[in-house]
């Protein structure tokens, strides 16, 4: 399931950053994705909510450390 989430997430990120080469890995942090700053984070979360039809909770965003944690968080909110 996490793999499925990761590949959907990858699509969201590619669209968002307009970069078809971008390949996410679970260990990746914001610092490793060009353009992923605090401004992008807020909008990315909205894009993630739209893609997965979920609602993230207060605290979900600030505490994220890497892509893998985001996938876990998405999975948690989907169930």
């Amino acid at each position, binding site marked *: 399931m996490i793999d499925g989430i990761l590949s959907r997430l990858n699509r969201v990120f590619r669209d968002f950053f*307009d970069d078809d080469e971008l390949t996410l890995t679970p260990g990746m942090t914001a610092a490793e994705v060009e353009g992923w700053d605090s401004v992008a984070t*807020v909008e990315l979360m909205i894009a993630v909510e739209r893609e997965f039809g979920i609602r993230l909770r207060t605290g979900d965003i600030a505490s994220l450390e890497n892509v893998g944690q985001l996938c876990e968080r998405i999975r948690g909110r989907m169930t």
Partner: protein
Amino acid sequence: MTGWTEVLHQARRCTDALAYSALARRAEKLLVAEGAPATHQPLKLALLGGATLETLQRPLVLALMERGLAPDLFVAPYGVFDAEMIDPRSATASFGPEIAVLLLTPANIPAWPSPEATLAEAQNTAEEVVDHLLGVCLGFHRRTGAEIVLNNFHGRPTANGNLAAKLPGDPNNFIQRVNLMLGDRAPDFVHLNDVAGLSAQHGLSRWFDPRLWFEAKQPVSPELALELVRNVAAIVGALRGRSKKVLAVDLDNTLWGGVIAEEGLHGIELGEGTAVGEAHAALQRYLLELKNRGVLLAACSKNEEPDALLPLQQHEGTVLTPRDFVAFHAGWGPKSDSLARIAAELGLGLDAFVFLDDNPAEREEVRRALPEVTVLEVSDDPSDYVHAIEAGRHFEPAVVTTEDRRRSDLYASRCRERVLAEASRDLSEFLASLEMRAVVKPFAEADLDRITQLVNKTNQFNLTTRRMSRSEVEQLARDPGWIHRSVRLSDRFGHHGLIAVVMGRVAEETLVFENWLMSCRVLKRGVERLLLEVAVSAARERGLRAIAGCYVPTSKNRLVEGLYSELGFERVEHDQPGTAWKLELDRFVPLPHFIELEEEAV
């Protein structure tokens, strides 16, 4: 220039906030690569506010570019709008904006009535709030000449249910009072950005997302940020003469239902009697309102002229009459030719025209032949047309009417003392009026979480941006080789909590600052002066002779580049990135601040 043509074309048609942000990022790259299109009018714009503004920055630039402006945008540091506007030497004032956009939220309302307040008390508090805000605007306007775009406030949840509407002390009731008063009293250089109206139109629960407020201090939910940004762009555009002047409308199936030449005066639908007729009459009433406030109406119809005029002259449901139109073109040629002729007759450029037609083929013809004309994309339902005209904010009024002028003269001549006092106050008077009090003490066990959070989150006022884990902080707090202090600040508006820390190692006779940072909530309050004073006495108690520190530049801490120099440190040789500074304690001269040191309440 194909890049710009494409991006601006897509931007104008874009209604989705996230898609718009993506376009705004493309626009930013284009600006770096080739600059703004040469035809765009340069504009120096400052953005200030009490919330996170960075998310709005790129979309705002694009929205202004949609309107033919090439903004040079300056974004003030987070949360310090009042000090930035009061201090004549602030970065915002030095930038010298032509227009300053001040974005506030209810969190920036400095005073609230008590829950039991009477009407008169609530009224007084509202006056205090409005006079403060307008006074700050007036002072900034006098010092810089900038026009100011100031918003009113969206509502907030109330615990009082429907009773709120009758309770002057209710927060939501109070917000409405403040909003009305802002409108009544705003002088002509203050242009109101009607966030109250906008948030009501879209629904407060969609407008304001509490999650994203708590998480990232977003003044508006990302989904509706585009509405806010476009509203600001419309106001700014209007101030720079970018509003459209002419609305050219088709007649058959636009101003009335049906085709006059085929169905005749009694066959078409207009006014009472049918739903479609009512919808067309409502559109006509809206057009009349536009016309009455100075928008020029032109008719552009494929008809014989007598047929085209007939409903406007004789139909009992018509609201508009032929005299309401400055130009009337009926004929069989392409509509683009008619529009070009109307423009020539009126002596106006085609870029001043908006075109409304129910027929997609006509719209397409005009769009292709005259790309300067703004063609409204509409459905075939006349009930949608008013919204279609309104949504693009093409006719945002800019002219200050004589009535407005008169009102602001009145306002000035009455010399509302408080506003003027506010406006002429300098930064030190402002700071003194805040009645700030601080508790400064070595790191306490109970504060370690908050201290660690500050160390890891603070970007702007941060000299070395040295992040530390909680256990590192805990360790140094216990280490006698370190000197550390935290600051809690409160003022007459309330408590700010623990907002600043400094920590340094004792190395021989010198205290070396390793980490010095402060929350952006209290920038420009003089806390750094107080904190240095405290550090100097702590160092003296230890028998030290100097304090040393470094400034390590990052992309976000330019704010404190000159801090050590301002505080009287001497620059010393340094072989690492950034600058190094030293202060001999016997040469320390305390700088004035307006914060009273308080013993901690037990």
